[in-house]
């Protein structure tokens, strides 16, 4: 008997809570409708990593915060973090679109096809996909010319290095990463033709321990400059510890390596997010393919530190030259590893070659998987 009563009580309790949750929502809906104004534009962000990764996603989230700060009450932003590339992303993008978001930024290459699929179903929503190459009426793409920063880093490395060897901690063999490696070495060889690069792939965007270990391995093999195309400051910390130099990635990491960081290639999405959201609000938004660099401020260099004045001056000069278009990092003659000329003297690499880059330039150790 006792248990019967207990059960009965529990069921009543469950029903009560369920009813509370349900009806509460109903009343909320009414008040919400009266509260929200027509000017509110909802902007959605889809992140591939956690906002606490201190790398790629962290910077995109910084862009979202800058957007909120700049447009204030005119907009409302929301985000979903750690969305895996694969089956989950399409649902998240569609959920954002169907819950009234007018602009949606999908911030990883793997979200390309899901973004396009959802965009077809929501012609009135503007989609912005980072680092992809497929567009549509309501899908624009944007990416940053990080290789410009890498080239400057290379120039600095070529001047600072004593062993003539650069250690490069890389994530996955995709064109973006390969382009970075090549730009780095081209920069280094422009001031010191003896420079070489050793690349270690950690097969992860994100594993601080392993990134650090890779940096140690490279230093042990004689590299005295460390650069990385992974997300954490770990390789730079190792450089600091071992007394060699390195570069920050995605954000200024000087706090992690006050004596070792020469500069950092900073991803800066702030202006772009503000600009595109404004365009969506005033109706001027059009699908476009944006590849911004130093000139537009999507790529920024952290202060040049821990180097002699003349190197600093050279770095600034290079940065200015790239910014005002006098210098293109991929200017010919460029030879690939086999010694074949891939970009002739007097020419620069075309957009297709840059986008799908799948070869190492002369001087990179190892080979790319074909």
């Amino acid at each position, binding site marked *: 008997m006792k248990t019967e009563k207990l*059960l009965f009580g*529990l*069921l009543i*309790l*469950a029903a009560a*809570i369920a009813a*509370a*949750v*349900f009806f*509460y*929502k109903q009343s*909320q809906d009414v008040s919400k409708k009266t509260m929200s104004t027509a000017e509110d534009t909802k902007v*959605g962000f889809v992140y591939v990593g*956690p*906002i*606490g990764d201190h790398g790629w996603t962290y910077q995109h989230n910084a862009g979202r915060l800058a957007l909120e700060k700049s447009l204030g009450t005119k907009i409302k932003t*929301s*985000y*979903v*973090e*750690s*969305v*895996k*590339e*694969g*089956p*989950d992303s*399409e*649902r*998240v993008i*569609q*959920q*954002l679109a*169907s*819950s009234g978001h007018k602009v949606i930024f999908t911030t990883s*290459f*793997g979200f*390309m*096809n899901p973004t396009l699929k959802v965009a077809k*179903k929501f012609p009135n929503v503007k989609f912005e996909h980072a680092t992809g*190459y497929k567009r549509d009426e309501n899908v624009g793409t944007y990416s940053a010319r990080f290789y410009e920063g890498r080239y400057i880093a290379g120039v600095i490395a070529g001047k600072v290095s004593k062993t003539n060897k650069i250690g490069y901690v890389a994530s*996955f*063999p*995709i*064109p973006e990463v390969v382009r970075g490696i090549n730009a780095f070495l081209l920069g280094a060889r422009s001031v010191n033709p003896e420079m070489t690069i050793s690349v270690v792939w950690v*097969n992860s965007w994100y594993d601080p321990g392993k990134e650090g270990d890779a940096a140690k391995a490279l230093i042990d093999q004689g590299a005295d400059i460390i650069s990385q195309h992974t997300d954490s400051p770990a390789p730079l910390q190792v450089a600091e510890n071992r007394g060699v130099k390195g570069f920050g990635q995605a954000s200024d990491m000087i706090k992690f390596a006050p004596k070792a960081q020469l500069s950092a290639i900073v991803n800066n999405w702030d202006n772009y997010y503000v600009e595109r959201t404004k365009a969506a609000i005033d109706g001027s938004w059009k699908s476009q393919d944006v590849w911004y660099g130093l000139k537009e401020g999507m790529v920024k260099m952290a202060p040049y530190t821990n180097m002699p004045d003349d190197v600093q001056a050279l770095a600034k000069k290079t940065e200015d030259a790239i910014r005002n278009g006098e210098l293109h990092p991929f200017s010919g003659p460029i030879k690939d590893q086999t010694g074949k000329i891939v970009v002739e003297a007097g020419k620069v690499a075309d957009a*297709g070659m840059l*986008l*799908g*880059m*799948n070869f190492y330039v002369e001087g990179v150790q190892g080979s790319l*998987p*074909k």
Partner: protein
Amino acid sequence: MSQIFQFFPKFVLEPRLEVSGKWVILSPIIAIILTLFSGVIIFSLLGKDPFLALYTFFVQPLTTMFGITELLVKATPLVLIGVGLAIGFKANVWNIGAEGQFTMGAVFGGGTALLCQHTESILVLPLVLVLGTLGGLFWGAIPAFLKTRFNANEILTSLMLSYVAVLCLSYLVHGPWRDPAGFNFPESQIFSDYAMLPILIENSRLNLGTMFAILVVLVAWILMTRTIIGFQLRVVGLAPTAAQYAGFKQSGLIWLSFLISGGLAGLAGIAEVSGTIGQLLPSVSPGYGFTAIIVAFLGRLHPVGVLFAGLIMALSYIGGENAQIEIGLPAAVTGLFQGILLFFLLACDVLVRYRLSHRSVLASERRE
């Protein structure tokens, strides 16, 4: 000293003679009440409207057709893998490498789809599905072989092989299987329509894969309760020594468990790529193989239980995404909350198998 860790010294848990039907229904209800209460506390502490948060988590996904179809899409791989794992776990075979078998299903099936990219035949899809299933089966067969032939513990081998499988897929998609028109980005071509599972409801992602999952639940149910193999599996799990006396060959059951769970994980993998994703990506699973282990146990290793557990688990993921969108709850909190939900579900499960008795009552019963 011995009393320290008995928090309720006046009560003991008495095993029930049989599973209590009443409590099978009631224990999840109690768990959910407890979860709701802790939800109210957590969300209030974080300065969020607790009722709105709970609504977004548990009710909102079910209020739209889109939400319901997505729930089924998300639950499908969990149920498919979970059922297979449950069969193995019943027999005390510890396959924790379903993630790898899932991935290999995607590799073999997806590879077939890429090979048949220009073949316009209705036979492509069955071929893709069969090869996908075989891929998972093959990857599951390795730990089974190493266990039966070399006595190598399957927990380690199956887990390690998962990493290997994921790296294999990564290699293929970053290298030989790249879309030739894709600027060397790590994605395969999009499969032709002949290799895609048919969509069940227009404008949704709900595909035939979900039907497979339901079918598998039914077949597994019959297998476990009505056939001699099911009986053997259960006996081996409950009483290995007795099983040996009864002449059941343990190695046979290890093979069987791994082939079933590997094959089903492979089927789940290929159903995911040819039903939901439509191409091969560097990573095709957001950890389904590991989540399915929870699903299997949450479902009490019973195929129908696994079905419900898969749905609950899927709901908690989708609810978590919605909570991020609607009320700005960080993913960290949704994870925390999901963990708490699972804790309560698992702890309340004890009431199905045990009865809470007052010690003094018990003592007086004994005397009688």
